[in-house]
């Protein structure tokens, strides 16, 4: 459970993710997806309840837990005033990746994500798709056991989305990385996720494979199952100070 003052962001959220699987965590806006990811990635502490990642407690064993995951946040977390390589390099230092490994794996990942030729360019010159790819490459640099992807394809064109999921799925299969993702694109979840949990109003309302959710709701698509489980009314999110600053930033960038 996590509350912000009198507002309960998540409550009664219980699920487990198996090692090596791709797990989609779906829900309408404001359902509690990002809050859950923030708690799992040690950025927020739960108000009550317990969390466990690879047998460790993210609250009391935060440093050990942090070594085990990579994360791509919903909002960008790159330093746009640095080059792609500098972002990768700083990440490697922060995760104690030895220099030689840092350089070798950094090169491999940037080539995999087709960013090697742009490694010396400032990130602020990158497109949205390139930034997302760089964030994922960076998140994988320290060979995490779990990769959290919070709406990683938001704002990307279909080509970039397709390429990104292909690479992520490939990493999941070849390196055994457990992937925990959120997305609003049901087709993506249907395509890449082994299992899916649907959260609404801060509570888990269903868990299972895509086929199981369709069967459970008597629908023929994941989107229809999602709508049946969460309703069709549009959710209103609180317009936060962060949103206001993001808006100002967008105006400045123009």
């Amino acid at each position, binding site marked *: 459970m996590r509350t912000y003052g009198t507002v309960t962001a998540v409550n009664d959220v219980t699920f487990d993710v198996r090692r090596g699987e791709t797990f989609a965590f779906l829900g309408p806006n404001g359902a509690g997806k990002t809050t859950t990811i*923030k708690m799992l*990635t*040690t*950025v*927020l*502490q739960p108000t009550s309840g317990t969390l466990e990642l690879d047998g460790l407690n993210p609250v009391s064993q935060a*440093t*050990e837990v*942090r*070594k085990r*995951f990579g*994360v791509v*946040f919903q*909002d*960008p*977390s*790159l*330093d*746009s*005033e*640095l080059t792609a390589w*500098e972002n990768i*390099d*700083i*990440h490697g*230092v*922060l*995760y*104690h990746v030895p*220099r030689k490994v840092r350089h070798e794996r950094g090169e491999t990942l940037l080539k995999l994500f087709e960013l090697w030729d742009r490694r010396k360019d*400032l990130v602020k010159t990158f497109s949205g798709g390139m930034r997302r790819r760089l964030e994922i490459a*960076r998140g994988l640099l320290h060979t995490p056991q779990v990769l959290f992807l919070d709406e990683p394809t938001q704002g990307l064109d279909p080509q970039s989305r397709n390429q990104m999921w292909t690479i992520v799925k490939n990493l999941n299969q070849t390196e055994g990385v457990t992937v925990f993702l959120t997305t609003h694109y049901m087709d993506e979840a249907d395509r890449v996720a082994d299992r899916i949990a649907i959260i609404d109003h801060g509570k888990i309302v269903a868990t299972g494979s895509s086929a199981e959710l369709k069967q459970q709701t008597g629908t023929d698509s994941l989107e229809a199952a999602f709508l049946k489980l969460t309703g069709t009314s549009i959710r209103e999110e609180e317009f936060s*100070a*962060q949103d206001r*600053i*993001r808006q*100002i*930033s967008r105006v400045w960038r123009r």
Partner: protein
Amino acid sequence: MNVVYVLWLREVKKYLRSRAQIIASIGQPLMYLAVLGFGLGPIFRKAGQGSYLQFMAPGVIGMTVLFTAMFSGIAMLWDRQFGFLKETLVAPVPRVQVMLGRTLGGATVAVIQGTIIFVVTLIVGFRPASVLAVVIAFLLIALIAIVFAALATAIGSSIKEMQGFQMVMNFLVMPLWFLSGALYPLAGLPFALAVLTRVDPLTYGIDGVRGTMIGATHFGVGFDVLVLLAVGVLFVIAGAWRFSKIEV
């Protein structure tokens, strides 16, 4: 390469790549030097206080260091909202190392800015006592930079909105600057103003710089250094504590 170094280097690289910031930051000190330095110079001289430019140049350098160091807090707010802070918060390193890297980076940038303004003051006629005096003065300037960069980190860790930092600028940074004795001598002040100047850490910084550069000190350079060290330790601890509590 350790965490503190790499985060320090990040701050310095970003600054050196931002020509606009470098040029813009010269504007205000230059205005103070030109308008106040030359405008009030004759009155200051008539009052028997000597060259106003000699008197206020250390103050303008101190102002530059104060403003630049405090702006490193804004950079943190920016990182908090748009990116990089989260990357450092989920890294498996003690947050105190992250805080120290950021603070020392912000302090270094402030010292570089102070150096640029020092060169400008030399161009317009400021003459320090000796080269050794300048070297010692810059150790004090570095101390001022660390004190206020740590304060900026503590404040930047505690507020979430840019508007909040505007309030800090108006109600903290400007008073710190005006109460520091950068523009006027500390002797013979009204009691209330004298008390306020003595609770302002920048007062001791500027007094120390002035004492080493031109030999005119109110409290004594040794005392200035002691106060700055004590406040610096306090602010670094406060900054580390506030930074360890950040949630994004």
